[in-house]
């Protein structure tokens, strides 16, 4: 490995020349990504550009075809699956909800990688579940059925389950999809809070304006490749959005936060102007 390929030491998670595919189709083609330590990193890109695949490959949920993923400096393949799960939590897009499960029981399932056949429940597990419920602000829901919660509450419970894994890294695949705006903000505020408490958070998001507002580090993807990565204010431009999303737009400053705000061009005025 040459010096240029070495991950910088503040990257907890990095991919080098990473290729992933289903059958013969390559979804990710030789990409390089770095997730800086203790940031809220957001992955954006058009539908089917490989965002979800990237998250799954980083979490070793998908097998990689070539290249490598480095977790805290070592290739993922050098860890056992449980070791990975003790360092990195991942919440998939549509986890299956078991019938009649209570919030507390679901969150407790996040303790799996810390348990063994003869070490099924310790004080540490109980404390981790309490902490996770508190951090995700769902303590008061602990005895409720998951199925009777609202979409936003349910998403926070799933995040609590991943938090119960007590991992320094948390990967969320589209945690705000299907949520209305207030619940989206609720989940993103939670992500921000988790990052401030020391967790490195990575999320795939669809809403660009919310993504740029919350992200410290943004990874912009297009058809299986990385187009740009870095702090949103530095990397986001109208040209980039046009190139990636095929959308004419203006970028203005978010009046609340000063972060980039994408304003799609009005096709009527665009026609007049040309």
């Amino acid at each position: 490995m040459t010096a240029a390929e070495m991950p910088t030491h503040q990257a907890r998670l990095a991919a080098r020349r990473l290729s992933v595919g289903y059958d013969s189709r390559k979804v990710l083609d030789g990409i390089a990504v770095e997730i800086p330590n203790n940031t809220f990193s957001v992955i954006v890109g058009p539908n089917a550009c490989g965002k979800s695949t990237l998250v799954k490959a980083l979490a070793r949920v998908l097998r990689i075809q070539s290249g490598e993923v480095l977790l805290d400096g070592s290739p993922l393949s050098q860890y056992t699956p449980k070791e990975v799960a003790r360092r990195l939590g991942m919440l998939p897009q549509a986890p299956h909800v078991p019938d009649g499960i209570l919030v507390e029981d679901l969150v407790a399932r996040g303790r799996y990688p810390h348990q063994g056949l003869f070490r099924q429940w310790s004080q540490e597990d109980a404390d981790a579940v309490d902490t996770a419920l508190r951090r995700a602000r769902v303590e008061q829901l602990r005895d409720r059925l998951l199925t009777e919660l609202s979409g936003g509450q349910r998403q926070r419970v799933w995040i609590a389950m991943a938090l119960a894994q007590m991992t320094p890294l948390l990967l969320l695949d589209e945690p705000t999809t299907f949520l209305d705006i207030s619940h989206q903000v609720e989940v993103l505020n939670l992500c921000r809070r988790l990052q401030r408490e020391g967790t490195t958070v990575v999320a795939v998001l669809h809403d660009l304006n919310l993504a740029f507002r919350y992200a410290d580090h943004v990874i912009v993807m297009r058809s299986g490749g990385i187009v740009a990565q870095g702090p949103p204010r530095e990397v986001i431009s109208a040209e980039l959005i046009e190139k990636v999303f095929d959308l004419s737009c203006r970028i203005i400053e978010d009046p609340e936060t000063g972060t980039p705000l994408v304003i799609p061009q009005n096709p009527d005025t665009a026609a007049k102007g040309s």
Partner: protein
Amino acid sequence: MSASSKATPVGTVSHPGQGRSRRHVVLRASGRSLKVERRTLSVCAVMLAVCAGLGTAGLLLGDYPLTVRQVIGYLFGDHTDPLAGFFVREQRLPRVLLAVLVGAALGVSGQVFQSLSGNPLGSPDIIGFTTGSATGAVLQIIVFDAGPAGAAGGALLGGFATALVVYLLAHRGGVSGLRLVLVGIGIGLMLGALNTLLVARASLVAAQTAAQWLAGSLNATTWSQVGLVSAALVLLLPMALVRGRTLTAMTLGDASAAALGIRPERQRLVLVVCGVALVAVATAACGPIAFIALAAPQLARRLTRSSGAGLLPAALMGACLVLGSDILAQRLFAPTQLAVGVVSGTLGGIYLIWLLAMERSRL
């Protein structure tokens, strides 16, 4: 309770602390811990008691009724009544034991497949594995004129072959629950038709043997059957039971399971092989006993109200159901002996209709 696992004396039961619900008990012993839902623990205790009660009834009841005193006397070395000894030793005890073993095997197998497919209808008797085992045995009896051992071997082979075919046909970049159920039902129906055809075309004697076998019966159970099934179960049950928590985690879907540090494909393969082996061994021992694999996990789940994949409750429920069905089969129209599969099939059919009605009302 703030005591750490080290400080807690051996064998004590500690309760989760204040603020936490008291639905669980954690059994601790020398740094080891076992977490059980309180309700599951009591339900298991009750089922164990029911199982013991039914087992005792199985020893007492019959055309030569025995008293508890006689049975206990025999079991503890009083051999003054040779006839009682014969009935207990050669007839009733092996039968009761086989019922328990087969019931437990079917219950666990049902729970494994229902959890993996995420569908109550994903149990081996619905998705054709039991029918496939039967096809193997019927082929042996009718085409190859085999005895009981040959039929059992055929059942094992038939079960595995059917499972393989169903899985290959249902596989499309992973096995989805509904697809597995639909393919399995289709294959099961075809094999059922094949079984009927084989019996219809067979000689009278062979057809009678095959029909008897197909009904699923514990009549004339021998100690060698009990021995073979226990040997298989000693291997297979622990293999499944140690994966209980993994199976529970896998009900969240493959991606979630992988994120928790499970290799879903590898675990699924082990669990499927284990589940098929359990149902094939049970079927090989006494023919297809209908609906136990379907009903036992569902009934156990409704009693325990647990969201996890409880393998032990399903095993106990399976044992109770087979024991109970067999006692009914023996005594309902005594001295005429019904096959246990007929009774369990009737009870299970009623249960299935109820289950489908419930599913419908939920939609």
